C-alpha cells in the first residue's frame, strides 16, 4: 500500500524534501512504523526518537493523519491505510 507523508518547517529544510510516498506491506500500518521508515531519510532522523519514545513532555511536531492530530486518534498506534495522508509540521507558538 502507498502512504503520502508531507513534512514542513525545519524537517523540510534539513532533508531537502517536501515529502515522500512510502510503499509498505499490509493493508494497514501503525503510525509508529511509518515514522521509523521516514526517519531513514537523511535530515529526518529525529523522527526515529519520536517513534521510539513518543512525544514525552511536549510534541516538537504535530502529526496529522488525514487532517486529524494523531494524539486525538490512537497516538503512534493509529493505523494508517492506503491513500491516507500523513503531515508532520512544527507548531509555531509565537504571536
Amino acid at each position, binding site marked *: 500500500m502507498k502512504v503520502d507523508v*508531507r513534512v*514542513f*518547517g*525545519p524537517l*523540510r*529544510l534539513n532533508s531537502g524534501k517536501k515529502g515522500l510516498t512510502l510503499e509498505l506491506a499490509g493493508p494497514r500500518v501503525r503510525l509508529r512504523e511509518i515514522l521509523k521508515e521516514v526517519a531513514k531519510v537523511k535530515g529526518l532522523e529525529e523522527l526515529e526518537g519520536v517513534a521510539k519514545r513518543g*512525544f514525552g*513532555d*511536549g*510534541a*516538537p511536531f*504535530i502529526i*496529522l493523519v*488525514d*487532517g*486529524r*492530530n494523531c*494524539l*486525538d486518534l490512537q497516538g503512534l498506534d493509529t493505523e494508517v491505510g492506503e491513500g491516507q495522508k500523513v*503531515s508532520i*509540521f*512544527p*507548531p*509555531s*507558538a*509565537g*504571536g
Partner: protein
Amino acid sequence: MVVAGVGGLGSVVAEALVRAGIGKLCLVDYDVVSVSDLNRQILYSHEDLGIKKVDAATKRLLAIRPDVEIVGVQSRITSDFKWPVEPSIVADCLDNFDSRFALDEICRRQEVALVHGGIDGLYGQVCTILPDAVTRLPNLFKGVGQKSTPAALGAGCMVVGGIQALEVMNFILKGTKGLSTSSTLLAIDLHEFSIERLQLA
C-alpha cells in the same frame, strides 16, 4: 472585532484593519512595551517603553485614524475572561498555547469565529475555527510543548499577521462564506517562501 494579544501579529492585524476602515476594535493584552518588542511590534516606538500595550496601541491607531472606536483591556486571556464588547470575530495573536486554548473555549461557548495565527522564526500557521468546527485549537495542537520564547522578525509577523487581517476582512465583507482558511491550516514557510494548505477534519 477583538484582537487578542497586541504583540508581533496583533500589531499588524490591528493596524491593517484600522487602515482598511474598520469602525470598532477591541484590543486585549496584559503586557507593557519592552525594548525587545521593538524589532517586530510595529505599533510601538522607543517612547512607549514601560507603557501598557493596549494604551500605546490605542494612541498609535487613533493617530492613524481618529474616527476609529477602540476599547483596550489590560488582561490575560483565561477561560472566564469576559469581552467588554460582543465580538463578531476574534483574531488569535497570542504567544502561547495555554492562552490560545482558553480563547478557543470562549469563542466556542459564545459561537464566535476565531482566526488563529502563530509564528516561530521563519515558519508560521494560520487557520480559522468556526463555532461548529470539529477540529478546534486544543485538538489541532494537542500535546504541543510550551517552548519558552519563540523568535520572530517584523517581516515574518507582517506576512502571518497580514494573512490574518485579510481573513478578518473576508469575514466582514462576506461572512463565513468568504473565509479561505476554515477547516484549513495554512503552513507558511518563509525560508522557501511557500504557503501550503492542509485540510483539517
